[in-house]
C-alpha cells in the first residue's frame, strides 16, 4: 500500500518550492528581525496563483476545486512556503482560509463580484475577525455587535489577534458580530464585511509577537462603524435592500495572469490515495452532513 501525491501535485510542489527558494528564503531572517510584512512578495504569491487555488475561474481562480485537487494543492503551497518562512505560510493560509473562503462560501453574488477578484489575484488581502478579548475559544461569547439602523449596520466592539487585517493592501475584514437573539436567548451571530477605511473602524498598532514577525496581526476596534448592505451570512429580510458600499471598490483587473499550472490542464488529484481507492474511503459516507461554519479563526 502506498500513499503518495499525484505526479502533478509533486510537480506543483517543485514549482512552489522554486518560488519560495528564490523569493522568500533569502529574506526571511531579515524580515523576521525587522518585523517587516513584505506586501510585494505577498502580491507575487498572488500573481503565481496561490491565493486562487480553491477559487472558481469566474473570480480569477484555478477552478481546481473538488476532484481536481485544489485543496490538496493549497496544502502543498502552504507547506512549501511555510518550509522557508512560517510568516508567509500563515499569510497565504489566512488569505485563502480566512479572507477568501468566508466570502466565497457565504457571500451574496454582489459581494463575491465586488471583493473576490482582487483577493483571489492576491492584489489585496482580507482578514477574518472572530477572536475578541473574552471570546477566543468560546466564539459564542462574541460581544461585538451590529445594529441595523436606517438600512446600514452600525458595528461596535473590538477584535484581537487578527491576521492580514491592517496591512497597506488589506481591503476589508469580515467580522463576527451579534445581530440579535435567537430562540432560547442564544445570541444570533452574523458575519459582516467591513471595508478598510470605513470611518470608526481602526486596525490598531501591530502586535509584538513571539514569532511570525513578518505576519500582519492587529487588534481591531469598531466605534459606530457603519456599513451598508447585508451580512455575508443569514441576511435579514426585514432590512431594506440598499446600494452596495461604494468606498474602495477594488480594481477589477481581468488581464490573464500567469498560471502556476501551465502544464496541468486536467485533474491533479485523481491519483491520491483517498480518491483513487474507494475502499479506503470512510464507510459513513451516507451520514448526515452538518453545515460547515467558516468561523474557525
Amino acid at each position, binding site marked *: 500500500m502506498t500513499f503518495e501525491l499525484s505526479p502533478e501535485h509533486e510537480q506543483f510542489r517543485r514549482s512552489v518550492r522554486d518560488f519560495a527558494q528564490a523569493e522568500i528564503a533569502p529574506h526571511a531572517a531579515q524580515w523576521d528581525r525587522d518585523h517587516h510584512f513584505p506586501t510585494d512578495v505577498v502580491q507575487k504569491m498572488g500573481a503565481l496563483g496561490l491565493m486562487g487555488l480553491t477559487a472558481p475561474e469566474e473570480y480569477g481562480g484555478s477552478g481546481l476545486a*473538488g*476532484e481536481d*485537487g485544489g485543496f490538496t494543492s493549497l496544502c502543498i503551497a502552504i507547506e512549501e512556503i511555510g518550509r522557508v518562512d512560517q510568516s508567509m505560510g500563515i499569510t497565504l493560509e489566512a488569505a485563502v482560509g480566512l479572507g477568501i473562503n468566508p466570502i466565497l462560501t457565504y457571500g451574496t453574488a454582489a459581494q463575491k463580484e465586488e471583493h473576490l477578484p482582487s483577493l483571489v489575484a492576491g492584489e489585496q488581502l482580507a482578514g477574518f475577525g472572530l477572536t475578541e478579548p473574552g471570546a477566543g475559544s468560546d466564539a459564542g461569547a462574541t460581544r461585538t455587535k451590529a445594529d441595523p439602523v436606517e438600512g446600514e449596520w452600525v458595528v461596535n466592539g473590538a477584535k484581537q489577534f487578527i491576521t492580514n487585517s491592517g496591512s497597506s493592501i488589506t481591503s476589508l475584514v469580515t467580522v463576527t458580530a451579534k445581530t440579535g437573539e435567537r430562540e432560547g436567548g442564544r445570541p444570533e451571530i452574523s458575519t459582516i464585511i467591513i471595508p478598510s477605511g470605513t470611518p470608526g473602524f481602526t486596525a490598531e498598532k501591530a502586535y509584538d509577537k513571539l*514569532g511570525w514577525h513578518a505576519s500582519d496581526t492587529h487588534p481591531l476596534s469598531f466605534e459606530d462603524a457603519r456599513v451598508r448592505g447585508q451580512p455575508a451570512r443569514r441576511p435579514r429580510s426585514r432590512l431594506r435592500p440598499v446600494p452596495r458600499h461604494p468606498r474602495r471598490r477594488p480594481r477589477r483587473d481581468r488581464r490573464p495572469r500567469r498560471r502556476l499550472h501551465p502544464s496541468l490542464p486536467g485533474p491533479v488529484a485523481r491519483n*491520491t490515495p*483517498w480518491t483513487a481507492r474507494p475502499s479506503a*474511503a470512510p464507510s459513513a459516507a451516507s451520514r*448526515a452532513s452538518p453545515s460547515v461554519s467558516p468561523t474557525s479563526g
Partner: protein
Amino acid sequence: MLEASRLLTYKAAAMKDAMDAGAGVSTKDFKQAAAIAKLYSTESAVTATRIATQIFGGYGFMEEYPVVRFYRDAKVLEIGEGTSEIQRMLIARGLGLPVE
C-alpha cells in the same frame, strides 16, 4: 513525526477535495480528520523545533542561527485556528464521547 503529520494532513486534504467533488466523504468525517491532522502536526512542529534547538546547545538560544526562529514560529501553531485543547475536545466529540 514529519511523515505522520504529512500523511494525516494530506489525507484530510484529499477527503476535503473528495467531499467537494461529491465523492461520498461526509463533512463529519472530514472535520474529524482535519482536527486530528491539525492537533498532531502542530504539536509535532513544536516538539521537532524544540529538539532542534536542543541539538544546537547554547546556540539553540541565540538568534545567530535560524533554528531559534523556527522554534519561535512554531509555538503559535498550537494556538491559532482552534487550540490543541479545543481540537482534543472536537476529536472526543467526534468519537461520540461526552464533552460538555
